[in-house]
């Protein structure tokens, strides 16, 4: 049986997202959220077990920095009265609250209907990269939306960076960004790229925005393909970020 027939027989697998709705399984863990009005000690307990320092207790409430959360869910295990894991996947937010959807859309207008993406692994654990790869499988098929991968930064409109930036990748990342023509967009894919996550600050150069300017951050360890799609859509100004996220 030819590959074309085989693919046709399988029918359409592709999600309607972002035009239509999509959801992650009920059990899927997005990022942690604080539930207000629990005993102060509960928030302290959750913060004490967070390896990426994503939780800041504030009396009978806490701030959870979504871009630091690596979705382990341990805070909700040790303090279920104070933390829950939601299964929302639309978690992307702009790095700068002043960067509105309108401003992003104006910048993206220069790209026309097709957008070329360059991916750089700045020190990932390799799961984020596989989720970026998954964007091009038939379930998500970014090509249908006019989004393509390019091997050359000279052709690239958008830079997707995975991983906290290691010392050795700082310069290659900076040079890739410099080689891209303006206007250009940078999306930090995953909590490590967005915030440095669990990595010791003296072991890495830092999150991506320490090295090149970041427009949009996508929390997750790794963020599933739907989260990354949402992040790309936010960066192109085609959809607003869900909410203003506190950033660490």
């Amino acid at each position, binding site marked *: *049986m030819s*590959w*074309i027939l*085989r*693919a046709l027989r*399988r029918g359409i*697998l592709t999600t309607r997202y972002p035009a239509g709705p999509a959801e*992650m*399984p009920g*059990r*899927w*863990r997005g990022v942690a959220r604080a539930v207000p009005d629990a005993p102060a000690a509960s928030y302290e307990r959750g913060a004490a*077990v967070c*390896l990426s320092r994503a939780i800041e207790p504030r009396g009978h409430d806490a701030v959870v920095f979504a871009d630091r959360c*690596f*979705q*382990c*869910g*341990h805070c909700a295990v040790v303090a279920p009265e104070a933390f829950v*894991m939601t299964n929302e996947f639309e978690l992307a937010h702009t790095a700068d609250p002043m960067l509105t959807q309108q401003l992003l859309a104006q910048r993206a207008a220069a790209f026309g209907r097709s957008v070329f993406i360059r*991916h*750089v*692994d*700045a*020190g*990932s*654990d*390799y*799961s*984020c*990269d*596989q*989720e*970026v*790869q*998954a964007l*091009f*499988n*038939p*379930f998500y098929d970014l090509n249908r939306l006019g989004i393509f*991968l390019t*091997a050359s930064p000279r052709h690239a409109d958008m830079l997707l960076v995975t*991983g*906290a930036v*290691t010392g*050795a*990748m700082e310069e*290659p*990342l900076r040079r890739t960004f410099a080689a891209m023509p303006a206007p250009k967009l940078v999306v930090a894919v995953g909590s*490590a790229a967005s915030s440095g*996550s*669990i*990595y*010791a600050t*003296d*072991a*890495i150069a830092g999150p991506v925005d320490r090295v090149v300017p970041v427009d949009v951050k996508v929390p997750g*360890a*790794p963020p*599933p393909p739907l989260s990354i799609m949402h992040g790309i859509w936010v960066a192109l100004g085609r959809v607003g970020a869900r909410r203003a996220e506190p950033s660490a």
Partner: protein
Amino acid sequence: MIARDDALGDAAAAAALTRAAVGNGARFVWCYADVVERRTVLRYVVEENGALVTHSGVAGDVVPSLDLAAARWHERELVDRWSVRIEPAPAGGSPLTPGPADAYRRAWSPEVSAVLYGPIRSGIGESARWVIETAGEDFIAVEPSFGYKRRGLEERFVGLSVELAPFVAEHVSGATAVSHATAFARAVETAGKIDVPLRAQAARSMLVEFERIHQHLDALAKLADDASLSVGSAQTFAAKERVHRLLAEGTGNRFARAVVCVGGTRFDAFASMAQACSQSLDRVESEATGLVDALFATPSLIDRLVGTGRLAPELVREYAAVGPVARGSGVACDVRASGGAIYADQEADEALRSDGDALARAHVRRDEIRRSFRIVRNALDAAPGGEWRSHAGEIERGAGMARVESPQGELLYAVRIEGGIRRVAIRSASFQNWPLFVPALPGNIFTDFSFIEHSFGSIVAETDR
């Protein structure tokens, strides 16, 4: 599994014992350093008759080199990161430290040129760099540099509680997070003599096999893509996607992260996985196996794999390679065979091929995908009841080593605890296999590079740590 520790003598004596053991047919596994009471202790590990044997000694001013191809990168790491003086010193530049971009611009003959490939590469690849000496199409020599992704993870464990530490192990290689968390947990369980309930063992076993399935599908999809078989590649990636969806349904994470913990699993993962499997396992399996069979019936793919990156079994033994790389050259090496997996199908032989080329390694992956589904079904059928976690207190002191058959092959963790974690050492399958990638290239042409790389299926993240 036996981990025998000698009374601490001199590292030179430990090295001599190791060298002699390898001379008598033992397989070199790794060597690593630990600092105990301000002394640098070297631990050499070999496998004899299926059991791990450790020879330890305190490093003096000079430690003799083992002079084994299998040990070269390990010794390099002792020199680069632990300041151990090894004589004779490992030759050449370090493959584990990123070099300056212009360090290799030597004067070439008119025919030979050097191509710098990496660290940022085309497509969606991991960062690493190769200096390739070539005369047109042929590889003459290849010099790798790794370390671009070094993020200090072995050091990150130090001082953590064993409850949180598996999350760090999952960051060593996020794509094979279950293997890493399980190897770490078993090392701690060995150190603390902690029993793991059968129900948790069944859940871990299933999750490791699902991990093998999605990583083998990943490698095969990339090979199809290398051969410009775009529909075949896309459909194989779709089969991989189905595995991730099943895992998200059954564990809450597409790579089954934050499930394995010391003493078992963090929640009743067996129950939730059994539920997810009852809905979609048949579909996931028929898609995966059907697609992989179709790939092997596609001549344009097979033609590019036959004879590519051929490895003689002697070379595989010399480098002590593991996993599908070893098995593709007919060298048996599977942790599951030595009692690591209780649900392994006893009647099924280890997937072995003898041709040693990229096709043989792909065949091994195809056979293993089927075998992994069988192991998953065996575990589901066994359905052990009871607890999913044994409740042990915090471990005050102890040391342990354990291994897991990860998708890339044998993965080892060694842990030393003294009022908190003092040292975690990791020997990944990828670290052991990359050195063999270099001699796999000469004799092939430039466009074979990606085929050989994807037939190895090694991960840079777990190599650099």
